[in-house]
């Protein structure tokens, strides 16, 4: 009992961060398994799924049925976005890094840190419960568009409980965002001016602002959808069943949904900025430009949502306006990208495991970004909308880039979190397999989409015009299986290193930011005395310092030699 009470009462940001990490990794595995079962259906339509089939679909002899297929892709999307990527990138690294990197002993509101985690854990429990509810799990796609998500099309209680789970996780996200925003504003150490903040903190801070602004919109949409399902309202139901407007839901969803892309990618951008500089042994190129670009993207993120609705009958002027804004937002993203490349240019690059994951994230983000331009332009979107091209594009950004960015962060901060080092050899194996099969899996989706394969079909090959794409889909499926198999390397590495990994030094990467000035793992109070920050976070590759100290960097608090 005492340990349970201690567990519930713990408010230390580092402990909470680890809980988010565990919770996110477990759901990453669940989401991955759902994806692989779904992919099996596209490689072997109607055939029993090996191993898991008899457990998951006993009534159909282990084969995926059309109804279970729609549940699979719905839950895969929801689990990955809300219950895996968000807790890892924002919950784990936001809570862990922000106080340590700004020189604070704790978050602004420690009890709120704990509360947000427990609310989030409740939402995860609701999401799991929704999968085993009577009359079926949620099956309306991750966007939960009505009328597919209305009781008229989806009577299962699973859909209702999943909507409640999304509302609950939204509350947790808002609480966390309020804490992060306030912490960065009020808890910075003396001398930690805004222009001395590491890019990771900038990314997490901007993400928190976007979460605070746009997650409540999803909350409102979820609330109205929930009322439609349980209270007999018809906000989103049109036709014989009601006089509502399904498009209203789409507006609300995408007002949240497009900023959500940036909510997930901004922390990765920040992390990449820090890691590329650290391992290129060079200051981050045009720091202020990168910060400005991130702020510009965050500022514009709420103005481009209409490109998700080009096919809904938007007026031509409105469509053109959203197209122009969507293409315009790529300009600051290009600034970011060029700054990363310039940071690498002529750097003394150290190919550590976190650096390799960072380089991989830069590559797939570039590919994902370029393929998105075709969806931002109305003329090409007409052809590509609702095709596998869309799936390939957003998986390159929201899956591959965030996945590789998350693992860059895990490999980088693992020593500071747990006081141990991960195996480099296993890390290299994990990286190589992940990058190759991520790129293969999602690139082939682009090919299938460009060839005309619509998304979300239970058995695409029953249609003659795409029957010839069965081969590509088969290769994609086995690439996805290989991708899943390589994650087992990470699991082995993670578990063994937790207990048997080499003890980590305080600063194993020769990094400059504040968290590397304390012991590994970070002590309970973070800093014995509050640090006074003397310089920016990228004093790397300095020949004068090497002459005097025998190393090429100065951290943010030490005096000039």
């Amino acid at each position: 009992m005492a340990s349970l009470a201690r567990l519930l009462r713990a408010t230390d940001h580092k402990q909470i961060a680890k809980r988010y990490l565990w919770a996110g990794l477990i759901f990453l595995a669940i989401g991955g398994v759902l994806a692989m079962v779904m992919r099996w259906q596209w490689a072997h339509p109607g055939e029993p799924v090996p191993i898991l089939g008899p457990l998951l679909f006993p009534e159909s002899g282990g084969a995926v049925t059309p109804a279970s297929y729609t549940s699979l892709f719905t839950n895969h999307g929801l689990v990955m976005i809300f219950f895996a990527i968000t807790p890892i990138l924002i919950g784990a690294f936001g809570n862990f890094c922000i106080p340590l990197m700004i020189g604070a002993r704790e978050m602004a509101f420690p009890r709120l840190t704990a509360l947000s985690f427990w609310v989030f854990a409740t939402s995860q429990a609701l999401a799991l419960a929704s999968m085993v509810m009577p009359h079926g799990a949620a099956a309306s796609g991750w966007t939960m568009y009505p009328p597919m998500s209305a009781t008229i099309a989806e009577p299962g209680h699973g859909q209702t409980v999943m909507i409640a789970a999304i509302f609950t996780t939204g509350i947790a996200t808002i609480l966390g965002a309020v804490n992060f925003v306030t912490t960065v504003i009020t808890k910075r150490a003396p001398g930690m001016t805004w222009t001395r903040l590491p890019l990771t903190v900038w990314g997490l801070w901007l993400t928190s602002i976007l979460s605070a602004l746009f997650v409540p919109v999803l909350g409102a949409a979820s609330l109205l959808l929930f009322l439609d399902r349980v209270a007999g309202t018809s906000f989103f139901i049109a036709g014989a069943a009601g006089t509502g407007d399904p498009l209203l839901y789409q507006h609300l969803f995408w007002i949240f949904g497009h900023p959500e892309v940036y909510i997930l990618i901004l922390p990765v951008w920040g992390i990449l900025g820090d890691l590329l500089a650290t391992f290129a042994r060079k200051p981050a190129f045009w720091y202020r430009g990168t910060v400005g670009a991130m702020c510009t993207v965050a500022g514009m993120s709420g103005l481009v949502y209409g490109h998700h609705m080009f096919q809904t009958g938007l007026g031509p002027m409105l469509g053109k306006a959203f197209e122009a804004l969507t293409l315009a937002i790529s300009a600051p993203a290009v600034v970011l990208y060029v700054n990363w490349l310039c940071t690498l240019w002529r750097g003394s690059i150290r190919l550590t495991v976190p650096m390799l994951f960072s380089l991989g994230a830069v590559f797939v983000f570039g590919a994902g970004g370029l393929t998105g331009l075709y969806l931002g332009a109305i003329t090409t979107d007409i052809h590509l909308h609702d095709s596998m091209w869309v799936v390939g594009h957003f998986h390159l950004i929201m899956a591959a880039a965030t996945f590789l960015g998350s693992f860059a962060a895990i490999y980088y901060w693992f020593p500071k979190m747990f006081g141990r080092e991960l195996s480099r050899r296993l890390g290299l194996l994990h990286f190589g397999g992940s990058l190759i099969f991520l790129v293969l899996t999602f690139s082939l989706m682009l090919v299938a989409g460009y060839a005309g394969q619509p998304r979300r079909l239970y058995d695409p090959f029953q249609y003659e015009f795409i029957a010839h794409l069965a081969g590509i889909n088969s290769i994609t499926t086995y690439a996805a299986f290989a991708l899943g198999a390589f994650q087992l390397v990470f699991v082995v590495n993670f578990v063994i290193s937790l207990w048997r990994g080499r003890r980590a030094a305080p600063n194993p990467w020769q990094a400059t930011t504040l968290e590397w000035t304390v012991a590994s793992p970070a002590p309970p109070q973070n800093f014995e005395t509050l640090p006074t920050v003397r310089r920016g976070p990228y004093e790397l590759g300095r020949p004068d310092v090497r002459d005097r100290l025998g190393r090429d960097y100065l951290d943010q608090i030490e005096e000039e030699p």
Partner: protein
Amino acid sequence: VTWRDEETASIGVIVLLGAWSMSFLALLFSLGIVRGGPSGWPPPALADIPASLRSASVLVAVASSAALAWGLRARRMPAVVIGGALAVVFVIAQVGLLRAFAGAGFELREPPDAMVIALAGFHAVHAVLGAAGLAWVAGRAWSRTDCGYGPLRRWAMFWHFVSATWLAIYLAVFVA
């Protein structure tokens, strides 16, 4: 409790209220779309809501916020108490308004009717929370325990939020 802790708490409340106001904005945006829908606007039952009840609720909300703001700025506890009492009156008026909605024959299946009730009900939850919070911190401040003006000021901020959102809902539903 240092001034810096007070400042941190106040900034946190401002960020929270800024975030939460987006949920009301989203509902008001939805109201705008619903008003242009096939059911038309206004809902017929809206005419059955007594004008005195509608106007009284806005006046009481504005008066309670004004009393709280002045009382806290001038450090006049009686004004703060009056503001808190008016907050309780507002909650009672809201209950009366919701009862009037229930008796006026609003149809939940009609989106305009349901949107009005959803907005009023969602707001009422905040009003009850705000009035209860004010009563709690005012009681602690009155009995001169560990609570100073800081918590009162922050609950007053929450109450201003309740008043401002009600004013917006009133304008969107009853006036515009």
